[in-house]
């Protein structure tokens, strides 16, 4: 069970958004007062798994925010020998979906992300009079190095540092939950195998000294 679930918030959200009033619809040919129709299927509560279902909520990011998001996500997870770039597996769109979702956790992240994107571009404007995505990779890295948390951030970079931490964590989650990244990560499941489950090969059992329990 998720430690993130707050029942109070769940209730609040359900009360506000999902528990829509039952639609009153007259059935044809009814002489007595028509009973209300069965409520529509709640798409989030009762999803149709045969359809890919992006969040059924409006996306909040502006085009400019998406551009900055794309540039920063690709700096954090670039295309290289380990796999595709973040933008190639939809991480910017995912971040937009995430920060727009109507749940408490996502709303909190959304405030950090949108405020942070604005902070980042102001910082870029001060240094180079350009938004982040128009800087050279070296210029981008110089700013990110100030907020990435490798060293204790200066007081004027604290907001940027809090933003970067949340942004990086969401990028990692969004990136590695895309099946196109799994090979580079070392996940080789979700494939049907015939026969008995193979278990751990003998050489690995020996390498880890597990012969007496295998």
């Amino acid at each position: 069970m998720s430690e993130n679930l707050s029942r109070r918030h769940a209730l609040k959200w359900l009360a506000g958004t999902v528990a829509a009033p039952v639609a009153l619809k007259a059935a044809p040919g009814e002489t007595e007062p028509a009973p209300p129709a069965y409520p529509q299927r709640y798409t989030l509560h009762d999803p149709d798994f045969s359809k890919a279902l992006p969040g059924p909520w409006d996306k909040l990011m502006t085009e400019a925010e998406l551009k900055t998001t794309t540039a920063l996500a690709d700096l954090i997870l670039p295309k290289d020998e380990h796999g595709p770039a973040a933008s190639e597996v939809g991480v910017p769109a995912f971040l937009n979906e995430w920060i727009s979702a109507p749940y408490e956790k996502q709303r909190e992240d959304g405030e950090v992300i949108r405020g942070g994107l604005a902070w980042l571009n102001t910082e870029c404007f001060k240094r180079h009079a350009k938004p982040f995505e128009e800087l050279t990779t070296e210029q981008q890295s110089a700013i990110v190095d100030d907020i990435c948390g490798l060293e204790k951030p200066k007081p004027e970079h604290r907001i940027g540092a809090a933003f970067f931490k949340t942004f990086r964590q969401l990028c990692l989650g969004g990136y590695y939950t895309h099946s196109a990244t799994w090979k580079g990560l070392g996940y080789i499941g979700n494939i049907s195998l015939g026969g008995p489950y193979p278990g751990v090969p003998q050489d690995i059992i020996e390498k880890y000294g597990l012969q007496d329990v295998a």
Partner: protein
Amino acid sequence: MPLLTDRKTQSQYDVIVVGSGAGGGMAAMILALSGVKVLMVEAGRNYEPATETPMFNTPEMAPLRGDRTPVRPFGHYDATIDGGWQVPGEPYTNKAGTEGAFWWWRARMLGGRTNHWGRISLRFGEFDFIPKSRDGLGVDWPISYGDIAPWYDRVEQLIGVYGENDGIANAPNSSPGVLLPPPKPRLGELMAKKSCKQSGVPIVAAHRAVLSQPLDWKNLPAQLFPGNAKAQEIIGKDMMLRAPCFWATDCIRGCSIRANFQSTTVLLPPALATGNLDIITDAMVREVIMENGKAAGVHYIDKKTRRDAVVKARIVILAASSCETSRILLNSKSQDKAGLANSSGQVGKNLMDSVGTTLGAHIPALENAPILNEDGAGGLHVYSPWWLVNEHSKLGFARGYHIEMGGGRRMPQMSSFSRLDQTSPGIYGSKLKEEAKRYYGASFSFSGRGEMVPNKDCYTELDPQVVDQWGIPVLRFHWKWSDHEIKQAEHMQQTFAELIEGMGGKASPKSGRDAIQRPGEIIHEVGTARMGANAGDSVTNQYCQTWDVKNLFLMDGSVLPSNPDKNPTLTIMALAWRSCEWLMGEMKAGNV
């Protein structure tokens, strides 16, 4: 799978079964296979596992990469549809003065909660039926382990359970040949086993309702249904169509190849094949109706039309889930004010859940481990049965717990990389990908599932003010853990910390009070209409027949007098099968 949702019913049935989960599904199948005409009434919607199971879907096809949300608490692909701890339009309340808000999980779907569960199928042991005789707390069951053991065998053979006979006290063996071979342990599970060995904690093959190989469809039907040629034919054909596990995908999504057990894939298809079962879904039962002191049928709200309706039968079986069954009894006021079958005053009392807590940690030895396919059986391969059965006097709390565990390279989730905040701050670019690969799958966690002792502060009753969207009075809960559960959770945390350290990890155990999970969170709630040896202090006899109404039976978790650490589903099915065989004898003898 043909499901009868055209809402046509016959005017008279032998038996009405309310609910389609473990108890209701089993009851309906056993009765239908024996020629009894059965109507099943299910509050949730129709559900077709063959087309609605997203077994191989990947996270990028789901909202928020499939992450857990308040409306999908186990993630987007969880097989519970139209349900959860909150169901739109179906509230419940907590009574003023309660110490813990009870969380009530419901699944408004055909097959109920058998669609989503861990498939961990542990038999209650010899001691579990006599808890009061052993420590003076709670009540003894009206049956012994020996009474139910043959039914455990049958259920395990029917549904398919992998495991081994380990001869551990109070963790019973199955009869020879009953269990299917368990899958081999994963790397982390072997490391845990090594650590447990140092600590004196046994780790053995888990028992789970997953086919590790095809069922013996040639021989099992004759063993399970001797003298019933039609049942043998139907069950044989159905067993042949169940595929063994192909070691991919999470069981909690459901199983369209029918390798794991759910009522919708294992019980309902053969029951429907008999032609003796009708099912109506979207039918929310409000009360049991009575005529001349006998149950005559049920009154339900047709959710499609919002109209009231009544269906009738000679026998009524409530298997709506523990709390929902009590709710129906309490709402059935035709007999007396306290609710139906409640002359003992025990309906709604003795509500229990499992004691649960978890501790996980990073295991350095698993960093950059060899790349292996660790999906396996979509759940744990090994577990630890309670090993201190005879040492309670030293422990300071009653009853025990078993340990479940997990880790390794499972399908990546949003939370899989949170550790990088601590291990790899400040890193980005290609180096970050190397760090992700290094730490992915290097976590391992232990979860306890323990027995709570029933107490007078944990109960449910009708809320005098609130109704649901169908106009039915809702349940109001009251809860208070006793010291036994808090101390048990503390013991779990200490044990898990020791095991984690034995694996080379660093553990930060919490106090019992901070670590114990919320009441209802483990979703093993049972009790509220317990069985017993006397009408004065229980609601049903050992055959799930209510003392007050001879043709009214309760066949779900509500009748359990205690809640051993073992997950209750297997026992609910064994009791239902046993009770149905007895019920058919009573019907033949003209007693009900």
